[in-house]
């Protein structure tokens, strides 16, 4: 054990936790155990979630909200039960504020389209402005670009400081009386930065703008309380929080969901249909056209149970300790430059870096040979790479099953990379 590893407090019992994740025993390249450091891209899944998916398909599979037979009732109860679990997980005032989507991208696109088709006072048009940030995942940039192009609304954004924080120095010029919506990420998927929600929301509320928060990198890692956040919409995805792929969530304030128009039309979202017109079901169903991802919602419910049993605050403390250790150890690697906050303060367990002139693709390839899984590229946040004048980064991201020993293995791996290309 290195000296730095002593004195780390708040770590979870990863030995026990890792037994829940079968894939962590996987070996690659002639028997090397994988070291999974890419949880910001997608998390691994515990047996409890895999079992829930299996049990659903083996015992209860039927379409929801339709049949009167037993297993159809069971499927509906499981699907709606998952909604209750998610509502409790994010402290939503009402379960009807939880909309199931297929991922966070769809959730964000849904908000953009609600506003694009809305009547006053929500309507986004050529006389209004949309605000986002340079730090966003593409999924929180492109929907707003599309809305801007289609409505003529002006798209504005906050820049990033040299040390990886949002530059809010001109907040009063960016968020103005014309602003209809401010959409930003709670935790950056590339920089790891945790953003100052309160300051932005306060200004948005001053001018009467709606606030949408991308919590994709927050929901898996910290207590997410939508009432405390005071936003109008919160989007996140299931597969980053030990749930299956194909299920995302949009939480929205009830009165907004009542007022705003649907986007996708189809089954499930209607009340009555004639050939001339239709009326719509109340939220959340108004926004869930078609057969929903039922098994995936059930899986997300199991994921929420799993995370809750460990405790989101405990997970947060664990990651804080790992991050502190990882930042310290990574900075010991010669020529390594952290892109983002080079401290453990107000940052999540996602650390991007460059390593001298060695391209991240080459870094990732050599690490893969050692079984180490990291993400390389621009992480769907190309504006951030442009901002720092780099083509790409290598990104290591940690979760509840990550250990200090994995940080050490990464640091050793990076030494090997330097020797390989040196």
């Amino acid at each position, binding site marked *: 054990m290195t000296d730095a590893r002593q004195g780390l407090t708040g770590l979870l019992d990863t030995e026990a936790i890792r037994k829940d994740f079968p894939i962590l025993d996987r070996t690659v390249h002639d028997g090397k155990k994988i070291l999974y450091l890419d949880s910001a891209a997608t998390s691994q899944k515990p047996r409890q979630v895999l079992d829930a998916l299996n049990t659903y398909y083996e015992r209860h599979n039927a379409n929801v909200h339709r049949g009167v037979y037993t297993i159809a009732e069971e499927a509906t109860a499981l699907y709606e039960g998952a909604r209750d679990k998610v509502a409790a997980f994010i402290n939503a005032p009402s379960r009807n504020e939880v909309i199931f989507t297929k991922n966070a991208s769809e959730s964000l696109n849904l908000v953009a389209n609600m506003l694009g088709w809305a009547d006053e006072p929500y309507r986004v048009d050529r006389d209004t402005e949309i605000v986002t940030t340079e730090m966003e995942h593409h999924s929180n940039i492109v929907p707003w670009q599309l809305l801007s192009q289609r409505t003529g609304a002006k798209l504005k954004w906050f820049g990033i400081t040299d040390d990886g924080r949002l530059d809010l120095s001109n907040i009063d010029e960016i968020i103005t009386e014309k602003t209809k919506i401010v959409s930003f990420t709670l935790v950056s998927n590339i920089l790891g930065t945790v953003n100052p929600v309160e300051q932005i929301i306060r200004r948005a509320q001053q001018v009467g703008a709606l606030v949408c928060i991308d919590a994709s990198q927050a929901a898996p890692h910290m207590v997410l309380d939508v009432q405390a956040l005071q936003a109008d919409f919160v989007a996140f995805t299931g597969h980053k929080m030990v749930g299956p792929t194909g299920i995302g969530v949009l939480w929205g304030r009830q009165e907004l969901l009542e007022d705003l128009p649907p986007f996708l039309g189809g089954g499930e979202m209607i009340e009555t249909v004639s050939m001339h017109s239709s009326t719509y079901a109340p939220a959340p169903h108004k926004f869930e056209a078609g057969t929903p991802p039922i098994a995936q919602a059930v899986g997300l419910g199991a994921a929420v149970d799993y995370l809750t049993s460990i405790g989101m605050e405990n997970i947060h403390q664990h990651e804080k300790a790992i991050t502190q250790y990882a930042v310290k150890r990574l900075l010991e690697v010669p020529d390594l430059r952290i892109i983002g906050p080079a401290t453990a303060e107000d940052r999540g367990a996602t650390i991007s870096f460059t390593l001298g002139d060695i*391209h991240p693709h080459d870094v990732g*390839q050599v690490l893969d*040979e050692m079984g180490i899984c990291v993400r390389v590229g*621009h992480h769907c946040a*190309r504006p951030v790479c442009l901002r720092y004048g780099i*083509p790409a980064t290598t990104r290591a991201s940690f979760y509840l099953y990550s250990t200090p020993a994995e940080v050490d293995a990464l640091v050793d791996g990076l030494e090997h990379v330097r020797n390989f*290309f040196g």
Partner: protein
Amino acid sequence: MKLDSMYQEVILDHYKHPHGRGLRDGDAEVHHVNPTCGDEITLRVKYDGETIADVSYEGQGCSISQASASVLNELLVGKELAEAQKIQAAFLELMQSKGQLEPDDAMEEVLEDAVAFAGVSKYPARVKCALLSWMAWKDATAKALSEGKTA
């Protein structure tokens, strides 16, 4: 180690000492990107009748994409267009072989240093890196031809 099959000495050599890098006068210019990883290349072709007088390029990317551009320059400059197209087709075939194609002598004669990329074809995520400059060259050549710059 399996990694050595990708990072052949000859590839690392081209990466560290690239041939013909830098933009020079050309008949047509293209800019290609690999959106999954952010590799970029700006490439110009210069024709002298049917002969490739120059392929100049500038870009940023991993060792595979950079070395591939260097090999391309070394292989294609001075060749007739038809010959170069044959080389390009052979390289494309090799890269799309998923590691199943064992380059024989005939192929080696056509591709020269470029056969070193055979190992890369086993890594689907990296095939695009190796092909970036070759696709850019093909595109630039088509552009030059359509603009009537070659004979």
